[in-house]
């Protein structure tokens, strides 16, 4: 079974600077694999005979360290479209661009996605991709088992656990419970650099359908910040009184 695992390269949020005017500065942030995509990568590595990592993004994602990082996590090869025309795409355009990359990866039986990207966390690319490919999609997969051409998936929904059977090929997006990411060892890391990496530019132009009106750091809610030590006289009683007053 061949599985394409879609992942997103995102700036490390630890390095995102907030300027005085509340705008975000990503210039010092290094690119990393979006955290929850690591669960999809791990599950793909466990389930597939050949797991292919796929991604699209700006030309900066053609980064040797990032590519080795993905390949050190059990992926057999990598296909990416890296082009500044593909930077910051919305879910609709991302799905279209990903579909083109997946087409180049060869016939795949499943596309795995993570729970949501560290930046947008919209949980929409998986669904849009399924629509683009004309495939079923099963989201919130906490457990995935494949037998033959059928996948049996346990979905962790808000109010229930739902077991779903889906004929492959399908798009499946996983929750972090689906598989704990491996910690790549030196052997994996050294092997990663020798694996096939197929990097191309944008295959077409992908229409952007969302406008960002504003993107600013939130204004801090003014909190009283009255801090006391538990050992202070009457500290707990005063806190109890404050809680009662708020109810």
């Amino acid at each position, binding site marked *: 079974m061949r599985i394409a695992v879609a992942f997103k390269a995102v700036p490390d*949020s630890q390095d995102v600077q*907030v300027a005085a005017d509340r705008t975000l500065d990503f210039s010092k942030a290094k690119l990393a694999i979006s955290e929850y995509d690591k669960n999809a990568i791990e599950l793909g590595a466990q389930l597939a005979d050949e797991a292919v990592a796929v991604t699209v993004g700006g030309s900066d994602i053609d980064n040797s360290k990032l590519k080795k990082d993905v390949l050190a996590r059990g992926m057999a090869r990598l296909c990416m479209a890296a082009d500044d025309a593909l930077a910051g795409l*919305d*879910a*609709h*355009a991302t*799905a279209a661009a990903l579909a083109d990359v997946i087409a180049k990866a060869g016939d795949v039986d499943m596309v795995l996605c993570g729970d949501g990207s*560290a*930046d947008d*966390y*919209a*949980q*929409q690319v998986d*669904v*849009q991709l399924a629509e683009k490919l004309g495939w*079923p*999609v099963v*989201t919130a997969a906490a457990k995935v088992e494949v037998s033959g051409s059928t996948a049996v998936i346990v*979905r*962790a*929904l*808000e109010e*229930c*656990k*739902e*077991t*779903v*059977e*889906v*004929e492959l090929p*399908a798009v499946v997006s996983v929750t*972090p419970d689906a598989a704990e990411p491996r910690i790549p060892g030196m052997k994996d890391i050294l092997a990663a650099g020798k694996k096939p990496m197929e990097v191309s530019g944008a295959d077409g132009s992908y*229409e*952007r*359908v*969302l*406008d*960002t*009106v*504003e*993107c*600013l*750091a*939130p204004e801090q*809610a003014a*909190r*009283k*910040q*009255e*801090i*006391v*030590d*538990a050992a202070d006289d009457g500290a*707990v*009683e005063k*806190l109890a009184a*404050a*809680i009662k007053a*708020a*109810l």
Partner: protein
Amino acid sequence: MKVLVIAEHADVARELAGGARSLGADEVSLVCFGGTVEGAADTVLNIAVPEGALVDDAHATLAPFAEQADVTLVEATRRGKVIAGRLAAKLGAAAPTATVALTQDGARGTYFGGVAERVQKPATGAAVYLVAAGVCDAAQASGAGEAIEVAWVAPKRAAQVTATEPRERTAADPTKSDVVVACGRGFAAEKDLQLARDLAGKLGGAIACTRPLTEGVNWLPTELYVGVSGLTVTPKVYVAAGVSGQMQHMVGCNRSGVVVAVNKDKNAPVFKQCDYGIVGDVKEVLPALTAAL
């Protein structure tokens, strides 16, 4: 303006219908997959989900309605996200998520785990929005609620539900409680969580937790996790017990009325984001607080 509202919960359906009116809707159609909603919309679409079908697959049934609507509002649940994504894709759109506010300017949602708030709106004609519970005002909802029976349309290659197991709600729902006691890594042992339960019990509230307590150690079910990829809660009082105050967590509770922090590390970031802070071990402070109430 015609607005289509799609929800899984009756209370949220009412909120979204109210939100539709706030956006200026003169015609609201509503479909709710969990319970009846009366007097909230002009028309109510009754869709029976067949045995074995995924609620997610209602997109095929709803597509013609979405095509006719100017705006489609979908409750941001797991299933709602699939419905919204499918409808948006069919309309050549993408659905932005409103977790903070929904106005004519667009959907205001958290970005980068709360590092920023972002407002997005459709660049093209079709508008599909995902809207979280608590964002819109149910009071604005109105309408005669004329029922329209709609036959289920199965999508091609539909997946099948073979079993459903309700999640045991062992605790009260933090999104519906006036008091939430959230537990973080400051709890050294699972048995100490009882101290939080005792405090929540005394106040008639619910307990919740940070991500490491559901994922790392499995002490509490994932549905109690507050934060960017979990719940957003807005109780009158939020007690962050043994919670360090990482942004990924605080973004889920920072619109609470009063935030109380209990942490033994006086330098914990949570103390910069609370109204009342008490420096001490949760093992000592929580029982004392429960007793003092």
